[in-house]
């Protein structure tokens, strides 16, 4: 009855293999004992993880990226959540304009944003400082927070807010005691996506990090330009694991809210 029969599963499996293969290869390679890139590795070991953890340059870059990402999460989540709550209630023309502005970093080519902030920030003396990177990354992270929070807001029954108001809660109290708790899962998921966005970002970092604020992706990029050794595989594997963990958390948050919703529905 369904068209699935006509899409042989084999083709789908091959395409999925194409999607997964590079990540698997990087993962396997990171445990290679060889001094150069060869696949499959002649033997396995933690040689490249030791190289990574023993190199203060790599560790500094990692700490800086984590710090920058954390700051981006704080900024983008605060600004983005408040804005999302406001935007849905704006009259249509203003809402369309603000939504377009806030979501535009998703489609404006990365290089245009990167050289734009480079051009302006070099005048404010923000090039080569982690502050500059935080400020620019926040712009890239905000769309994820806003979309995630907006989705949560759209799922709230407006009757709940009306009920709170009719029960005597001021608009502020309604926001704080009813709306925010209800959208908390959306805020958390947005925060996780904001973290990943900043942690993985390369192009802005290339222009803004100078020599004083080298993030992990920037360090990887520099390394890749000159040599191809498996340290990068180890670093990549670690970032993949971190990303996967964060995605798993996001997934759990979503599933839990859905479960809660269903339980409420049943009762």
């Amino acid at each position, binding site marked *: 009855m369904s068209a699935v029969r006509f899409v042989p599963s084999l083709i789908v499996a091959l395409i999925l293999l194409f999607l997964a293969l590079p990540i698997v290869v990087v993962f396997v390679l990171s445990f290679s004992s060889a001094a150069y890139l060869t696949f499959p590795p002649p033997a396995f070991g933690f040689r490249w993880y030791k190289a990574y953890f023993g190199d203060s340059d790599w560790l500094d870059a990692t700490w800086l990226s984590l710090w920058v990402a954390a700051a981006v999460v704080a900024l983008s989540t605060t600004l983005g959540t408040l804005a999302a709550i406001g935007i849905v209630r704006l009259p249509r023309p203003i809402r369309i304009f603000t939504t377009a502005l806030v*979501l535009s970093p998703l489609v404006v080519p990365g290089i*245009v944003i990167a050289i734009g902030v480079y051009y302006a920030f070099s005048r404010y003396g923000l090039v080569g400082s982690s502050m500059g990177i935080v400020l620019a990354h926040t712009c890239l992270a905000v769309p994820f927070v806003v979309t995630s929070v907006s989705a949560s807001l759209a799922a709230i029954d407006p009757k709940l807010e009306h009920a709170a108001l009719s029960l005597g809660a001021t608009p502020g109290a309604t926001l704080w005691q009813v709306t925010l708790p209800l959208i908390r899962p959306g805020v958390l998921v947005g925060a996780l996506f904001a973290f990943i966005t900043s942690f*993985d970002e390369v192009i802005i970092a290339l222009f803004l990090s100078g020599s004083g604020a080298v993030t992990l992706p920037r360090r990887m990029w520099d390394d890749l330009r000159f040599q191809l050794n498996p340290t990068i595989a180890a670093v990549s594997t670690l970032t993949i694991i971190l990303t996967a963990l964060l995605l798993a958390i996001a997934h759990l948050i979503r599933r839990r809210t859905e479960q809660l919703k269903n339980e409420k529905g049943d009762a």
Partner: protein
Amino acid sequence: MSDSSMTPSMRILGGRREWSRWRRDIPWLTPLLLAAPLLLYMAVFYAIPVVSMLLRSLNDPKWSLDHYAALPSDVVFLKVLWITLSTSFIVTLATLMLAYPVALALSRARSTAPLILIVVLLPFWTSVLVRTYAWMVLLGRHGMINEALMALGIIEQPLRLLNTTLATEIAMVHILLPYMILPIANALRQIDPSLALASSGLGATPWGTFRQVTFPLSMPGVAAGMLLVFVLALGFYITPAMVGGSRDITLSMLIAQEVDQLHWGYAATLSTLLLAVALGLVAIAQLLPGVGNTFRTSK
């Protein structure tokens, strides 16, 4: 006039009444105040920087349209534009062909759907740099693909795969696949399942149902995916720079080179062009029925 210049917090009781009257007269005042910090932030750290940089295309060194007027006769620019457009086009088509079967499987399969979703989403969220690096490893002279082909006796000498246009295209397809799969799967999921039943009941074979009902109804997803992938492909920088051939210079790479040499006017001109094409395509996408929200839900 004096009233409107005072903020509500400056007033005591009488002011509170004033404030609530304002809120009644202008119901979007509170929402606007909530959105204001972000809008201000985006203006200062994103919109104004980008726009002021783009303005350099008009005022470097003096106000004129000279930079734009020079483009049609600029051989380097035309070549780069051609490479960028043709690569994006090829990548978009290849992505569509690989994405549709996966999207179909994703929307139909019940037991395997979560697994498929993981395989699609994990690379999606893995950094472009890491994925590009993976392709460097796979496509290298002694990379896995060459080694495998040699072990199978298909080739004797390693092929030159890395630093070719093909390498760029393969890596870009890999990176952009999820952007095509998700909107199509989304469109497929939104099709009322009773339509396929009705089609079948009215005498259409499974292939007939797919061709006449399922596929046409998934077109909004296909259109959204194609536009999104094409727009993203236009701006690619990291991947072509790392795995592409030495002559495969994309618009983004040319812009970065010009900025390195502080040719701001030229770089800004190219950026304006790139941005205009990207935003133009997104605007078209918004006008297509059923595509409007794709850019919100993607990624």
